[in-house]
């Protein structure tokens, strides 16, 4: 998911801005990724979230599979965008 490690900013400070920006971009992406995965897998796996305080076995398994599929989906859906972003 390295989309931001390129020519943004210029080293004029006491640290390498390109490097800091690249890290920042990855952290921003990771933060949005976690939030999105939290939302989509909740919608798919926790239908009756207000009747029982525990995750039952089926819900837990569903979360595991949802997470695995979500990370596979990111690689498929994002290919074009990453190509585009790396040309920025």
């Amino acid at each position: 998911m390295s989309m931001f490690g390129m020519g943004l900013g210029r080293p004029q400070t006491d640290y390498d801005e390109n490097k800091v920006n690249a890290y920042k971009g990855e952290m921003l992406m990771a933060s949005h990724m976690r939030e999105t995965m939290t939302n989509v897998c909740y919608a798919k796996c926790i239908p009756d979230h207000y009747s029982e305080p525990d995750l039952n076995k089926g819900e837990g398994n569903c979360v595991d599979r949802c997470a695995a599929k979500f990370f596979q989906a990111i690689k498929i859906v994002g290919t074009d965008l990453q190509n585009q972003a790396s040309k920025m």
Partner: protein
Amino acid sequence: MEHLGAPTPKEQKKLEEINVDLMMNGIAGIYMSMVGRCFTHCINDLTSKSLSGKEEKCLKTCGEKFMKYQQRVDLRYGEESANLQ
């Protein structure tokens, strides 16, 4: 992210700052989105100003379940992220 080279102490400091900001914002965002979801589901009577026993129980259950859900998601998220690198 090793392909970027190890950060210097100055950079490390900057990155920690960014990290703390994003982490706090992420927690606040996920937490409030959970509150919003549980509220939307559990509160249907707006003719009174205080929660009924039923609403309170529903909110408590919804919050507890979400916490357990979040822990499970974060566990998987950590594992899958580690595999990506």
